[in-house]
């Protein structure tokens, strides 16, 4: 099935999900705000499916326009040493586009001028399209290696990914330390046994309600965060399973009934696990926005215009944005898997992306207890 057909299918599915959720919202009235959660969840799921579908159509168009089928890249065994890896212009194109986009965002926000922002978006998408074109034909036989110390003999892309993750640790480290600093500033209230929501001993003046108090208010309010934690762990597992199956030279169908059904051949073993990762990541975002909606518009509004609110929404929002970027890459990987594009030779791309995805999981290991549980 072509990427264009899958893309159109995803958009139609998005419209169906939206119509169903809005219909259910009109007829179902429950306690715990479940009807409202269906309403918000349907809108978010529809938005994600439309984005995925649009990308699917773009992948199909790029692939049709540039060829890029496997084996067409002329990096065969006989001559790939002569064709030393040519690097890629895509990252610098995308970085330039993102820079213009961010500059244009300020302009658009203050002046309503869309020009620079639009140009930035176009250049970013051009970079992404060029990256797809290059990677669709990547057979992995020209993987550049590092020379010299201290990374000699290690793949350049792996080193690059780890350097990138170092910067990510610092970004999340600064969010996390800001939160801890603010919260230790409120420590004087930690010894106070009171109920911020007026059911028991009233809290003293100046008491700062933090996100975890709202989230821990009941089983139903903690549920989205708890499900998300399990979903991220499971998504890390499905991604590493996709990598394991992609790297197998002598692939054999799993013996178990369920695993055999899930992974009937190597191509579908890789594809199904990538799609499962994509699904779990999408579910994470849907539940995250349901949770945000409840916190912002619930009985005790927790808004971004307070210190406690801004540090919570900025940190969890930055994490959610990382999940979203990961989903876009996963979507491309899934389309490539659908076409049988992964092999033992080029599976390292899944490994390097996996480092990013597992890092997102790792960041959640710190965020979940700090912002949700305590």
């Amino acid at each position, binding site marked *: 099935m072509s990427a264009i057909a899958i893309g159109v299918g995803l958009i139609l599915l998005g419209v169906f999900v939206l119509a169903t959720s809005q219909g259910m919202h009109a007829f179902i009235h429950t306690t715990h705000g479940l009807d409202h959660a269906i309403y918000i969840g349907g809108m978010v799921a529809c938005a994600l499916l439309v984005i995925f579908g649009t990308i699917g159509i773009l992948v199909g168009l790029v692939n049709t326009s540039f060829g890029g089928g496997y084996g067409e890249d002329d990096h065969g065994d006989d001559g790939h040493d002569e064709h030393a890896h040519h690097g890629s212009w895509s990252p610098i194109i995308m970085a330039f586009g993102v820079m213009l986009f961010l500059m244009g965002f300020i302009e658009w926000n203050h002046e309503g001028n869309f020009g620079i922002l639009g140009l930035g978006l176009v250049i970013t998408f051009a970079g992404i399209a060029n990256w797809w074109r290059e990677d669709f034909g990547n057979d992995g036989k020209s993987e550049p290696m590092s020379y010299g110390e201290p990374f000699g003999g290690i793949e350049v892309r792996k080193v690059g990914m780890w350097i990138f993750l170092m910067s990510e640790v610092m970004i999340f480290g600064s969010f996390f*330390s800001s939160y801890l600093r603010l919260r230790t500033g409120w420590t004087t209230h930690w010894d106070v046994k009171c109920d911020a929501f007026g059911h028991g001993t009233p809290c003293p003046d100046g008491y700062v309600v933090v996100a975890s108090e709202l989230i821990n208010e009941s089983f139903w309010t903690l549920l989205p965060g708890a499900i998300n934690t399990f979903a991220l762990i499971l998504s890390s597992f499905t991604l590493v399973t996709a990598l394991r199956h992609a790297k197998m030279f002598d692939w054999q169908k799993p013996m178990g009934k369920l695993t055999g059904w899930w992974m009937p051949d190597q191509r579908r073993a890789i594809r199904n696990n990538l799609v499962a990762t994509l699904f779990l990541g999408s579910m994470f975002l849907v539940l995250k926005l349901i949770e945000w909606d409840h916190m912002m518009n619930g009985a005790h509004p927790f808004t971004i215009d307070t210190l406690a609110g801004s540090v919570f929404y900025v940190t969890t929002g930055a994490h959610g944005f990382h999940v979203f970027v990961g989903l876009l890459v996963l979507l491309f990987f899934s389309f490539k898997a659908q076409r049988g594009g992964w092999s033992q030779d080029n599976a390292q791309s899944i490994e390097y992306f996996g480092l990013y995805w597992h890092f997102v999981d*790792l960041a959640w290991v710190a965020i979940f207890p700090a912002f949700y549980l305590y």
Partner: protein
Amino acid sequence: MSEHQMAKWEMALAKPFGNIYNFNLALLMLFTVIEVGAVYMDLPRYETWAVLIGVGIVKAFGIAAWFMHLRGDPVIITRTAIFPFFFVALMLWGIGLTNPAGVENLPSWCTPPWVPAYGA
């Protein structure tokens, strides 16, 4: 992570689960249940912190060591991964020094009389 890269203790852990990734999934799920349970058990503050930090360290190890393949990668990659945590530690240290109780109520082992106080 292939079997020849695993230590004996890892192989012993992985054996009942088929491979190390299955074991890691079970480990992470179990510790997440413990994490959520600890908060609802209404333990004293420091006990709750101890459980949450302990569980966080185990989960972070599981993800970094096996899912991110640090156990099978060259040591320089692990060193690279650990490096930014010095900055995180520095920021946490800064929090300790700047919180309202950080100056007056520092424990005695933090304030030995290395330098005579002004006016002393």
